[in-house]
């Protein structure tokens, strides 16, 4: 029942409140395997220097580590060139870079920016800022009752006025996989660029930016085994080339005069200041680990877990599930509510059994409003989770109503 991956994750050996830690909040952040922890430690123990700045061996080595990681990310995403891979701090910063550099430059009054109702706040708020500053309109793609983006909705909302379509490939609340190919096809037919938020996708299945033909794609390392503080922006070279810098200062310049500056070529143009080289090396080690496990394996494990968990949840009369009608279009994310009990109480009660889930609005207020709920509970799996973890969740859920004096 248990799988051997668990052994690679020191934190999963811990007990919580005297119980085995059952970590089901992978949508928020994943745990880190020893190989990633060691890579970061080794960087600081053996290779630390400021890359691109020194002519001495350590700096050269740090530069090499940093640029090798960029090459690894390029391959991982199937991008054409390393100049198309920009390191950031997280998905949020990548999206802000796009909003402030691309959005503020190329959006004009009357233009439309299309996003979906299932976006994380990080793919909503920056576009609201652009729309307000530029007199553009923010249009929403609404999902149907099952949480699915339909062809009709895509056809209806993406029009000749649309200049940017920014959508998540997987909803962090519902785990539903959106039809990115259709969105790209429609958006390109009207001349819009497509930005894909892959924070919840890249960790869970193989993504090929050229096969998808997306213009930009963003993700965070920490949701795919890497340390916090490192993220990625992929962009097609010809688009990144025509965008102005987002942050400016050291490392992003070619030459600086008293009154003017010429900017460095890609990717340095978008990487101002000293970067998180240790974190980037951690991301590189995380990609190695994920590739060793293999995406077909990861997908299969997560699929088995939701096919095991959801029927069990269906049997609990006090559970309401969201976005669980079609399990074929879903990653390992389950949103639910317990009748009469607020998600925060559910989460606290499960915590006493060592079960860690997320409760709240999941940084998706507009989706919560649209679903007509105040908050939900969310269990999200990764490949190191097991059926035993699901059993622990189901058992703990059975106790929740009783703790607050309700009948089961």
């Amino acid at each position, binding site marked *: 029942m248990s799988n051997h991956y668990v052994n690679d994750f020191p934190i999963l050996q811990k007990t919580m409140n005297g119980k085995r830690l059952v970590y089901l909040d992978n949508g928020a952040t994943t745990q880190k395997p020893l190989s990633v922890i060691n890579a970061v430690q080794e960087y600081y123990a053996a290779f630390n220097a400021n890359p691109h700045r020194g002519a001495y061996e350590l700096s050269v080595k740090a530069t090499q580590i940093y640029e090798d990681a960029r090459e690894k990310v390029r391959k991982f995403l199937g991008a054409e060139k390393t100049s198309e891979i920009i390191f950031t701090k997280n998905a949020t910063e990548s999206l802000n870079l796009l909003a402030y550099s691309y959005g503020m430059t190329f959006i004009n009054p009357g233009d439309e920016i299309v996003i979906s109702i299932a976006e994380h706040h990080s793919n909503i708020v920056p576009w609201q800022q652009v729309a307000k500053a530029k007199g553009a309109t923010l249009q929403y793609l609404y999902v149907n009752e099952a949480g699915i983006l339909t062809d009709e909705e895509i056809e209806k909302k993406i029009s000749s006025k649309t200049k940017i379509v920014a959508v998540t490939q997987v909803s962090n609340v519902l785990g539903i996989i959106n039809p990115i190919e259709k969105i790209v096809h429609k958006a390109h037919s009207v001349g819009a660029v497509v930005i894909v938020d892959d924070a919840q996708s890249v960790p869970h299945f193989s993504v090929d930016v050229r096969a998808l033909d997306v213009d930009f794609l963003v993700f965070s390392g920490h949701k795919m085994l890497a340390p916090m503080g490192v993220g990625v922006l992929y962009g097609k070279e010809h688009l990144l080339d025509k965008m102005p810098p987002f942050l400016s200062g050291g490392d992003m310049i070619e030459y600086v005069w008293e009154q003017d500056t010429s900017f460095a070529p890609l990717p340095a143009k978008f990487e101002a200041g000293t970067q998180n080289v240790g974190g980037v090396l951690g991301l590189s080690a995380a990609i190695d680990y994920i590739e060793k496990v293999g995406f077909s394996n990861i997908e299969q494990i997560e699929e088995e877990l939701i096919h095991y968990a959801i029927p069990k949840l269906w049997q609990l009369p006090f559970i309401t599930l969201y976005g669980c009608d079609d399990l074929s279009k879903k990653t390992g994310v389950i949103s639910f509510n317990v009748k009469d009990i*607020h998600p925060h109480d559910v989460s*606290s009660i499960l915590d006493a059994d060592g079960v860690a889930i997320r409760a709240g609005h999941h940084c998706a207020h507009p989706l919560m409003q649209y679903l007509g709920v105040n908050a939900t509970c969310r269990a999200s799996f990764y490949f190191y989770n097991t059926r035993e973890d699901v059993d622990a969740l189901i058992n703990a859920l059975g106790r929740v109503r009783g703790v607050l004096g309700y009948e089961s």
Partner: protein
Amino acid sequence: MNLSEIYTEIIAEHNKSKRNKKQLENPTVILKGRNPSCGDEIELALKVEKNIIQDASFTGVGCAISQASTSMMIDLIRGQTIEKAQLLIDTFLGMIKREITEEDQLEILDEAVALQNISNMPARVKCAVLSWHTLESAITTEEGKTSESSQSSH
């Protein structure tokens, strides 16, 4: 953390009870309190006459801790003077911050002492204090009104 220390019978009872959860007739002050991070939102209504909280009630959504804390607070302040309400607020917040631990000092909180252990659950402290902070703002608003009206009568 021991669950039964937090989710006591008193909390469960107040959470379910609708006694104080309703619209108030002719309130003199209504104030919203929110925990943006968890989406808890209550609306506290007071009817203050001659410095006395004649009646109070609340509406809104939230977890058992915030709902129970609000309900217990309303039981405590109904019929009390503004000054007594302020003392209750100070004592409750002092208890949560563990600044007030003496039993005889906490006595005035009556059933609300059941929330003393919430400080063992840092993630939930804000749920317990939401209504008390809201009450404090409501009192300030109410006092502002009286001082305004007394000023205008000059």
